[in-house]
Structure formats: C-alpha cells, structure tokens
C-alpha cells in the first residue's frame, strides 16, 4: 500500500511536525514532546482543563479536537497505541489551571492502564483528575464495560469543552460529559481494511464483496460478516440495532452522525444519511442536528459509522456553543 510518508517509524513525529508548521499559531508543543500539544490560550486559571487523547492513526481524532470549546490539551501515542503515562502526566501538568483536569479517552485496555497510571501520578502531584471513557460502539454486546469508544469522542469532548468554557466545576463538567457519552450509540460497517504505516500490511482481510458490521477501529472482530448490500438495507439494519440497544420514542430528539472510517466518500456518507434519517422519521424521532464527514478514521479503512446522541436542552446548548479546531468549527 503506497503512503505519503518518510521513514515509516517516524509517521507520528513527522505528522505533528507538519501540524505545528501549519497551525503553530494556535497550539504549542508540551515539554518539547513529539505528540502532546496544548491550546495557546490554555491553561486558564480556574477553568477545568480538558485532556483528550489516545493512539495516533485515527486523525482527525484527537488532534483535530484541540481548540476553543473543545480539548485544551491533546496527547497521542504511537499508531493504534495508547500514549504512555509520562506523556499524559506532562499534558495534565501543562493544562492544570487549578480547577482540576478531565481525562477523556476511549475504552481500550491499553489506554485504561496507561491513563489510570497517569491519574495516580497526577494525584502524587496534587492535580485532581476525573475520567470519562467513551464506550459508544454497541458491537461487543450488552456489557458497557466491554464496549469500545469510537465516534462519541467528538461529542464527548465538544460537550466537555463547552461546559468548561462556561465555567462549570470539575464535578459538573464530568456530570454533563458523562451524560453526553451515555446518550451516544454507534455501530459501523467496514468495507475494506486499513494498512499499518510501519508494515504496509492490512490489519485483516475481507473478500472483494464482503463487509463486516461492527468491526473495531483497530480491526477487532465485529458482529456479522456479510455480502455488500444497498444503503437502503444496511442503514436501517444498523439503525435498527442501535434502537434495539437504546430505545427511542416518538418525539425524542437526536443528533445524527455519519462518519467515514477513512476511505469512504462523502457521497456514500450522504446516501447512508438519507436512509438513516428516513428510518428515524418513520419512528417519529426528530433529527435535531447532523454531522457528516470524517471525524474518527482508521487510516484508509473503508466504511462508515452511524451514531445517534439523544439530546435534551442542556446537551443542545453545549453542542451549539462556539468551538474552533483545525477540523471542526462552529460559530
């Protein structure tokens, strides 16, 4: 697989050097590290610091959510690898404005171990930390402890960033962030595999006409391998599974997302969106807002995630609050 890079083992370092060259006016490197960046206007004395991160290779997640109204500091690890506790600690120290720090990251074994250890180190340094792990992907089954975090990362950090900007306390920021996360449900369908920059090899194989529903962001097995089907079958199938897990009633309001896993075109996303909206309309559920695009990828994996976040007035308020990052801006 051809990729535009230099030495494969330098992809993360080189990527961040490029980001710094393009957008160094609004973010700074933390402690000279390769992959830890902080907003230029952070920390703010008395404001909760939002620390967001995980493995690289999923861009624009996480660095694409660094900015006003979103994350204050982003810490990324190697490709598909959690950042290590020393990096997370440096990020927390850099972002602490005396009002505590909220860690937001995806529910993956490696991330949990490394962020938890960092939380211990933060406690040693007198930094108060709370944690919200994203676990919106329903494909592993009913037990939420086992669920993986995928696209809910965007709305989780958006709500957290808005709440922090509004001056809420750490306890309150955690509360409303957890509410946003708890209201998200996602299921994806994968069409073609991703390849790892370092090896050039695909992370798994799929037949020419095969797709896998519920495949994970690192190639983890999904719930069903099947033949490709039209969008007007796949989207209702996915939406049906989501609604089995998170029953919605007529009159409920949701925010809808169609996310490209990396290779899938906007054209395809909008076709899936058309069918998903129709499904929700037939249930009397109102789609209050939509996001369609590339928010959380796995290199050049083909496929898309569909996500719903059920909203109340509080979540709507924080979703609409202004924000600005290199890839997600709202006025």
């Amino acid at each position: 697989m051809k990729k535009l890079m230099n030495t494969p083992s330098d992809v993360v370092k080189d990527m961040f050097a490029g980001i710094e060259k393009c957008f160094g006016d609004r973010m700074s490197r933390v402690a000279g590290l390769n992959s830890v960046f902080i907003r230029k206007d952070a920390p703010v004395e008395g404001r909760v610091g939002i620390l967001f991160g995980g493995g690289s290779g999923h861009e624009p997640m996480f660095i694409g959510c660094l900015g006003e109204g979103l994350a204050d500091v982003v810490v990324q690890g190697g490709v598909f690898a959690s950042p290590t506790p020393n990096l997370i600690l440096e990020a927390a120290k850099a972002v602490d404005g005396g009002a505590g720090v909220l860690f937001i990251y995806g529910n993956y074994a490696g991330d949990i171990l490394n962020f938890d250890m960092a939380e211990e180190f933060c406690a040693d340094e007198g930094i108060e930390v709370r944690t919200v792990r994203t676990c919106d992907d329903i494909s592993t089954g009913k037990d939420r402890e086992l669920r993986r975090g995928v696209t809910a990362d965007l709305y989780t950090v958006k709500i957290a960033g808005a709440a922090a900007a509004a001056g809420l306390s750490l306890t309150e920021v955690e509360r409303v962030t957890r509410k946003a996360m708890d209201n998200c449900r996602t299921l994806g369908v994968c069409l073609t595999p991703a390849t790892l920059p370092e090896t050039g090899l695909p992370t798994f194989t799929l037949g020419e006409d095969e797709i896998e529903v519920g495949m994970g962001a690192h190639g983890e097995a999904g719930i069903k391998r099947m033949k490709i089907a039209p969008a007007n079958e796949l989207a209702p199938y996915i939406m049906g599974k989501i609604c089995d897990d998170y029953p919605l009633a007529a009159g409920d309001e949701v925010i809808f997302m169609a996310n490209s896993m990396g290779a899938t075109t906007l054209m395809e996303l909008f076709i899936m969106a058309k069918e998903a909206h129709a499904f929700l309309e037939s249930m009397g559920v109102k789609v209050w807002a939509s996001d369609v695009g590339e928010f959380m990828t796995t290199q050049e994996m083909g496929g898309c995630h569909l996500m719903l976040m059920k909203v109340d007035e509080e979540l709507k308020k924080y979703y609409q609050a202004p924000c600005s990052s290199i890839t997600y801006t709202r006025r």
Partner: protein
Amino acid sequence: MSVTVLEAARLKKMLLGVAEVIISKKDELCAIDSFIGDGDHGIGMSHGFTAARDQLAALESDDPSKLLRAFGMGVVTGAGGASGPLFGGLFIEGGKTAKGSGELKAADIVKWWRAALDYVRSKGGAKPGDKTMVDALQPAVEAMEAFDGDDIPELFAAAAKAAWDGVEKTKNYVAGQGRSRYLGERALGHQDAGATSISIILETLGRLASEA
C-alpha cells in the same frame, strides 16, 4: 551458600540481568505470541526492558525502592500498550512496598510480588484461567507465600517453578482476556506469551540472586 538479604547493589545487578535476558528472548517471545496474539509481545518487551535497563544503569542509588521504581518506569515508557503498565507495574509496585527498606529480605520480596499480583489483577481485569500473565503470576505468588524459609534464591526458584507449571496449563485454556480472546478454541494447545515472560523474569531473578 544461602542468600538471605538483597542489598541495593545486588538488586540492581539482578534487575539489569533480567532486562538482558528478556531482550535476548525477543524473537522467541514473538514466536510464542504469533500463534494466539499478534506476534509482537517480544517487541514490546524488548523495547520496555531496554528502556528499563538504560534508566536503571544511569541511576546511582542505594535505595531499593528507587531502583525498582526507575526500572518499572523504564518498562512502562518503553513498552507502551497494555504491556507497559502491566510489566512495569510489577516493579513499580515493588518500589512502593520497598519504601524505607535499605535491603530486602525474603519477607519483603513476598510483599513485593503480592503487591505486583494485586495490581495486575485489579487493573488488568484477568482472572486465573483467562490465559494471561496471571496464570503464571498468581501460582508464583501463592508459592512464595507458602514458602518456608529465608533463602532468597530458593524463594524465587519456588515461584518460578509454580510459574512455569502455570504456563504449561495455559496451553489448555481458551483465552478470556487480551487479544487472543477473539480466537476461541483456536487458542488451545498454545502457551501464553505474557505468562512465559513472567516465568522468565522470576527464574532469572532467582538465578542471579545466588550469584555474587
């Protein structure tokens, strides 16, 4: 000749020796891991223990607690992924239990490894029978706690024997945690790489404890 006390200098030599052995077994550990994992256990361990060796070698200290912590932190930062905290945690937890001790006796070592097991069990989420490092570590710690005596090399030898027995048993388990849990019955017949690493570490500590 019996060894009943580990002073800082000997402990440092032992830890550096463990690092060298793990680094030398990189390919072997990858091969073991390739059957039921993604074949990279040896790479993470090699990176982790290289960083641990370098951090420890650069540290001048007669405090076993500081030596253990530096070594563990090296593994954490060098290995990355889930292996970093799990294997680095073995030594970081040891560092916590050794605080205030100028040298370690058998009872201190048992405390160290009990704390290490408790950390791995509580943070990693695996139980015995899940086909993970716990399948070597838990029997090892139980053997240490049952050990009657103060000879440190023999203490580690008892632990290592129990650990290797645990590794052998993992061949009959279907994985409940970690990457290989997606394999189901295909994991049968193959030992777990993490459990193997635990056994190598304990066996090496025992061997080096009796060297001058």
